[in-house]
């Protein structure tokens, strides 16, 4: 599968694990759901290969902040593009908790939202496969002017005159 990473279309090297069974986690780089991480933290820490975590909109980012250095990827799921909770999660991870590795938007990720996602700190996108990924990529260029400070822009426009 292809994803957008740092403004380019690249092959995804990560496997997303489903369910809560740690023994089913295979080799290589895996992204595990928050519930599985909570249930099998020690097992997952001991395995070889990269580790990422997947948060649903209702999962509290505060529950993983002590473990942030364990994750090479944090994936935030958008079950529907209209559920905006993870825009806040992303800004908190970047701006408050200093997370500086891959922050990936997954789920119902579409062209017309990824500019805002980028502003909130996402740097990787696994778009909804209903749309050609080349089209989705174009969304990153929607605006050049930004009024607010966010993860991509430390100062509001009024401090940049």
């Amino acid at each position, binding site marked *: 599968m292809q994803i957008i990473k740092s403004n380019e279309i690249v092959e995804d090297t990560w496997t997303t694990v489903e369910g809560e069974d740690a023994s089913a986690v295979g080799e290589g780089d895996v992204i595990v759901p928050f519930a599985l991480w909570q249930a099998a933290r020690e097992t997952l820490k001991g395995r070889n290969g990269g580790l990422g975590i997947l948060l649903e*909109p209702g999962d509290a980012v505060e529950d993983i902040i002590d473990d942030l250095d364990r994750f090479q990827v944090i994936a935030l799921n958008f079950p529907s*593009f*209209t*559920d*905006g*909770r993870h*825009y*806040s*999660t992303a*800004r908190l991870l970047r701006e*408050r908790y200093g997370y500086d590795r891959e922050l990936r938007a997954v789920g119902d990720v*579409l062209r*017309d*939202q990824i*500019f*805002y*996602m980028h*502003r*909130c700190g996402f740097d990787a996108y696994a778009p909804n496969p209903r*749309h050609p990924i080349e*089209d989705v990529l174009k969304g990153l260029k*929607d*605006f*050049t*002017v*930004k*009024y*607010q*400070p*966010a993860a991509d822009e*430390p*100062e*509001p*426009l*009024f*401090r940049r*005159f």
Partner: protein
Amino acid sequence: MYQYNSQDRQIQQERVQQFRSQVQRRLAGELSEEEFRPLRLMNGLYLQLHAYMLRVAVPYGLLSSRQMRMLAHIARKYDKGYGHFTTRQNIQYNWIKLTDVPDILADLASVEMHANQTSGNCIRNISSDEYAGVIADELEDPRPYAEIARQYSTFHPEFSYLPRKFKLAFTGAETDRTAVLFHDIGIRLVKNEAGEVGFAFYAGGGMGRTPMVGKLVRAWIEKEHLLTYTEAIMRVYNRYGRRDNKFKARIKILVHELGIEEFTREVEEEFAHIKDSSLKLTQAEIDRVKAYFTAPDYKDLPADDEGLTQAMADNRAFANWVKHNTVAHKVPGYRAIVVSLKTRGVAPGDVTDDQMEAIADLADEYSFGEIRTTHQQNLVLADVEQGRLFELWERLTGLHLATANVGTLTDIICCPGLDYCSLANARSIPIAERILERFDDLDHLYDLGEIRIKMSGCINACGHHHAGHIGILGVDKKGEELYQITLGGSAADDASVGKIIGPGFPAEEVVPAIEKLLDVYVEQRDGEGERFLDTLRRIGVTPFKERVYADH
């Protein structure tokens, strides 16, 4: 008024391009209606019963004559020659073609206007006091802060997919005219004990099917924290507001379910993290924006104008208009005048293209080229010389814009209802028309004094019926349009939610029911000074209810 700089212009042009692309992709089938819907709503575009409706933002209700002429042009070129001013100071066009919308947005951008976020689950157009800057009881003009908040909320990356719509209002006056307590966040300019001016934040007010009066979150905060405190509230709401049920998704439900103490604790905790961030306002930015809202070049005029006094003595209709449709100005020799958009034969808030152009001309000739829109669905020319009121009144009379009924029973707030709206259960406009027809004797209206009638065609309460002294709510009962009456609401400083008095009435029985309510008031009022609402609060709802349902 505020003038765009190059970046304000740039972002608006980028918005037009973005929406043009979205419309093209929708028409090409690349975007599904489900995907397109939130995008068009965030550009003010609704799909109504007969056509698309476009809601254009009028930030804090302020328009230049040039902008008003553009609104007339849009009404003429793209619609059926009229527009409808709304309770949140915006204007709606009811007969719009989807393919025209990108061009309309480009036309709007050419006069520094837009339809950004006039719908959708985002921060909506920000409303304010129609007498900002000219009223004597004002601590400070709220519009610079509303403009700062407009820019902050425009295309906010974190808060564009909120659980539900989000409305802000600002007032700097002692008397609230913005329904500040019926907003998701209401912001008042207030003094602290040391006499410093800052903001009071209220949250959790709103209409809809669960009306609630906003609660005080912070009694005073420094001006520099306008945006940081707003962001703290927004973030708590975005993270914890309910998303499982559309009808429980407004911030008022979160405030209600958490309780104001716990809600405030969470806001303050979030605020502690961000209060010293770069979002903290600078004095330079406050000064920059304030410089756009300085007083116009007023003449040095006497407080009393003999010509005006004489004209009022000679002409009773003019005297009535001065008394009811004009307001004292803080500068001697000037008054603010209200252009009533409530007249027989016209839906409340509707204005034709020709009227808009004429109003723009009058604004240029009499009021420094500015027009304000009001929460009550009227227009205001805020800076008129007293000595020129008579000629202005004559011109407005010729335009059918001088009905001297402001603040009376027929100054009705009314939603478009089932004539236009796909959400509505019942028609609103014909009921408003019946009321305007029945109560067209001005002396009778003046005798009845201040009465606020507000009408909504469905439970979504766009006509603010909950906040009407008399509220009218259209419902659908097995295919029949019925109208429930509520009593005792208020959107002012004594904000309260009206209560339904009983079963609904068919359309033809609404006016008779109102007549009975008024009879009880006239019989029971404690002198002519006691308003309908005050009599109602004093004697309770029972005598009104018994009279209305006596024959049922």
